[in-house]
């Protein structure tokens, strides 16, 4: 479904990710793990079009997306839940969700999506008309994911959702993601918490200072000694 070949990307002429290749198959839950600064967020930003690759190819559902502007990529079916949630704090929960459905034209479809999302996150329904900034951290994270789901994506990318969340909430959100994945949506998860991320993933990649150093099923990676070494920077 998503194929990335020899991707190099960075900021201001300074490459951060070198020659990365990986793929995500339909229906999978894939995790990319690595410590901070390894380039995980950079990869996601490139996939969603916020950054333009220096070199390499990105193919999604058979189409080259590496030169597309971000908003076109969303239309192709990729939703990106950014690091740090980034909900629109001054706007209501409903407005945030409707923004998620920006690419959809059909009003009935939007209403349908809204209902589905509220079913997954009943908490958001309760807070429909509250300003997003008044929500707690966990609720905001849920809103961010829900907003991503609104665009009816084929692939949901979640960046560092554990950041700044207390552990008990991390578990809850992980559960929800697993549930979403079980319902058939492809999920690409980026995490520094290797344990949680790999436990639930079908497959995973390990990123160290901009390079993919290991790949395999979640279990394999968790048990692999080499991975641990790589991950801990030894």
């Amino acid at each position, binding site marked *: 479904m998503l194929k990335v070949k020899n991707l190099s990307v960075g900021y*201001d*002429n*300074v*490459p951060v990710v*070198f020659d990365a290749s990986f793929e995500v198959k339909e229906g999978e839950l894939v995790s990319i793990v690595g410590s901070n600064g390894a380039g995980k967020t950079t990869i996601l930003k490139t996939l969603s079009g916020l950054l333009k690759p220096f070199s390499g190819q990105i193919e999604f559902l058979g189409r080259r997306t590496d030169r597309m502007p971000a908003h076109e990529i969303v239309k192709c079916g990729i939703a990106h839940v950014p690091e740090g949630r980034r909900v629109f704090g001054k706007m209501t929960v409903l407005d945030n969700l409707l923004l998620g459905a920006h690419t959809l034209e059909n009003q009935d479809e939007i209403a349908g999506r809204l209902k589905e999302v509220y079913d997954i996150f009943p908490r958001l329904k309760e807070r429909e008309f509250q300003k997003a900034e008044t929500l707690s951290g966990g609720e905001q994270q849920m809103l961010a994911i829900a907003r991503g789901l609104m665009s009816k994506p084929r692939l949901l990318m979640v960046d560092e959702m554990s950041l700044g969340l207390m552990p008990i909430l991390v578990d809850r959100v992980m559960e929800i993601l697993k549930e979403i994945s079980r319902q058939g949506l492809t999920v690409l998860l980026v995490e520094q918490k290797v344990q949680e991320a790999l436990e639930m993933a079908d497959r995973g990649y390990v990123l160290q200072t901009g390079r993919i150093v290991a790949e395999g099923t979640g279990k394999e990676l968790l048990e692999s000694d080499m991975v641990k070494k790589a991950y801990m920077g030894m």
Partner: protein
Amino acid sequence: MMKKMKFHPLLVIFFVILILPFINDNINFHHIMIMFLIYAGLGEAWNIITGFAGQTSFGHAAFFGIGAYTSTVLFYRMHISPWAGMILGILLATLVAAVVSYPCFKLKGHYFAIATLAIAEIIKQIFISWEYVEGATGISIPVMDEGILNMQFHTSKIPYFLIAFAIFSIAVLTAHYIEQNKMGFYLKAIREGGDAAEAIGIDTVKYKLFAMMISAALSAAFGTLYAQYILYIDPFMVFTMDVSMKIVLLTVLGGLGSIYGPIIGAAILIPLSEYTRIFLGGTGKGVDLIIFGALIVAVACFEPEGILGIFKKGQRKKRGVDYARATT
């Protein structure tokens, strides 16, 4: 690296500026050189508060005007030498800067900018209505014997040029000194983030105030020179937003936050505006300003970091490559 260089780039610039009027003795060229020095110097002064400390001021005409008026009124009413007037003007402008900008420092970004604009407009109105300084009528400075004491020279513009050059040098060197020393580091820290600066012990309000006061003092000195040079001032010419905006424009055009920026900006903008006016202004159709406006837009569009941006870009590329090499 370049520390032991035989000459500092500033010295080269100073030297070139200094000899230019002696190469070309056209009086109009001298006029342009004087205006260039005044505006480049004002740009340097403005750069200290806006380029270094990041506090956008749209009201520098106020300090310029105070400098111009203080010396002129003293000369006109009491025949006090403009030099003494200049010093008093500097003191007064510094005082005004301290008093009016202090309460504004809690404002951020454009709110501060609009506040400075408002202050300048209020000061302008005060001068328009103030009868002792001849209000809206303006003051024609009595023509006296030429001489350094009266700061009036009728036969040649070279003395004006030299005075302008002296004040300009002081402005550049002040800016250079600030940039290279503690204060420059502190101001840049303030520009990039007030909280981080506070956390490492920088009294941000104090340093912003210092920067504003130094900036005002330098602007006022140019004001005195300007008044003595034109020999006529009224509030509309020295307190106008046009002066404030010209300073902003030329500095941004040259490159904000660098001591070279205002020099480059003024070196382009002042001759450009003078020559377009001279060659096209007589048509009465505003062609000069049409071209002038279009050029400014073009520079902004194609060189968004100002003319200096061209060099910076090269530098950054080099650094970036070095860094990439270092990390891989």
